[in-house]
């Protein structure tokens, strides 16, 4: 398992561009927001938590189609499916690698981009924490979507259409934590719900992902 993780991480780092692309996308979305809604700092600080969450979600979404596609094309996935490691484990590792290369950098970058959007001071802790807890769910749900569409030629757009509705609860609770935190309100309830969604998806969704991948590999 660790060998697979190290391999995926190395590929992500060395294949050039792929690693930083999600981050760059996150940056550019955030920069575009003041252009579209105006530079008024009061407006920006109100919408900052939501924009950061949406930007992170989109950056995550855009990187999903490469999560399995390369391994599918060169036949690595067939080998992994016949390996002694269960496919559920393989996909969990894939999700973890995706989170380490896409989700974690987004979490670390979010406070910096919060400065650009004039995020209130007490909001920085909560945006970081909510993304830290929420983004693993995005990776795991995204792996399910990627497994669902891996064999399709024009899977990219379909992948977004399938995964977006599944992201709704995570986005609602995650953005709610960040928004309440920024306004100095109590955040326990949405934070617990967010953590519950993340833990639940990590525990259960790999089984569904493996099931659909087996169908696609058949």
């Amino acid at each position, binding site marked *: 398992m660790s060998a697979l993780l190290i391999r995926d991480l190395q590929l992500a780092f060395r294949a050039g561009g792929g690693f930083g692309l999600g981050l760059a996308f996150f940056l550019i979305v955030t920069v575009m927001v003041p252009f579209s809604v105006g530079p008024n700092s009061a407006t920006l600080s109100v919408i900052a938590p939501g924009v950061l969450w949406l930007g992170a979600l989109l950056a995550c979404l855009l990187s999903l189609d490469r999560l399995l596609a390369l391994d599918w094309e060169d036949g690595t996935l067939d080998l992994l499916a016949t390996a002694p490691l269960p496919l559920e484990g393989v996909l969990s590792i894939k999700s973890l690698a995706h989170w380490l290369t896409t989700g974690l950098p987004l979490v670390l970058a979010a406070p910096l981009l919060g400065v650009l959007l004039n995020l209130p001071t007490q909001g920085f802790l909560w945006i970081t924490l909510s993304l830290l807890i929420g983004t693993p769910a995005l990776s795991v749900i995204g792996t*399910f979507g990627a497994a*669902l*569409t891996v*064999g*399709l030629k*024009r*899977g990219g757009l*379909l992948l977004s*259409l*399938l995964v*977006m*509705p*599944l992201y*709704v*609860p995570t986005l*609602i*609770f995650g953005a*709610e934590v960040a*928004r*309440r935190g920024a306004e100095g309100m109590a955040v326990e*309830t*949405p934070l617990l*719900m967010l953590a519950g*969604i993340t833990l639940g998806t990590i525990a259960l*969704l790999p089984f*569904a992902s493996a*099931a*659909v991948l087996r*169908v*696609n590999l*058949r």
Partner: protein
Amino acid sequence: MSIWEYANPKKFLATSERVLPTLWVLSGALIVGGLIWGFFFTPDDYRQGSTVKIIYLHVPAALMAINAWFMMLVASLIWVIRRHHVSALAAKAAAPVGVVMTLIALVTGAIWGQPMWGTWWAWDPRLTSFLVLFLFYLGYIALWEAIDNPDTAADLTSILCLVGSVFAVLSRYAVNFWNQGLHQGASLSLDKEENVADIFAFPLYACMAGFGLLFLVLVLYRTGTEIRVRRMAALIQRERMAADA
């Protein structure tokens, strides 16, 4: 006599063809009768005026929009567990009907909301969860369309339906929570069922029964079409193989 006999496509087609004409007439009569009764023979509401009568389209459509997804969930489970092709095709046939019902509910709701709430749309929990349901339908249909192999498509869409159901319920509760956090929705959430008096209720029941039957009719009819499409593809392939040999 068990329900599983209808897993045989031939038996399914024979029976559905026998009952379909009756069901068509019955559902048509109930809907037309219910609508005429509701539109012309009930008094105007003292507060909402005649706009209240859109209830006869709105509520039955919303009811069937949710139940269509539930039926797809059951059909998907039957496909996953017992692998009856008719069941997978019935789920496929139900999705477009469900999406149209969802659309009717959303549009009639907007038309009703404009004079009543003064807005076409509000991010009320109920409205929002219907919009999310609409997106789930779109994804499900798009996945069916995207895959060529019918068995692969049936497998993948049924698992999407199962996973999607869990997330749809989750979204429902998330949206409830989120809306409370944003604004008090009390002024928007008129609880219609509790307010409706008997004089409005009876035509409403007729419409609900009519819409239920209409859904059944459309699903049976469309499933029959899907079975014939499948059969046709098999025949064409057989001809081609005979020609090659």
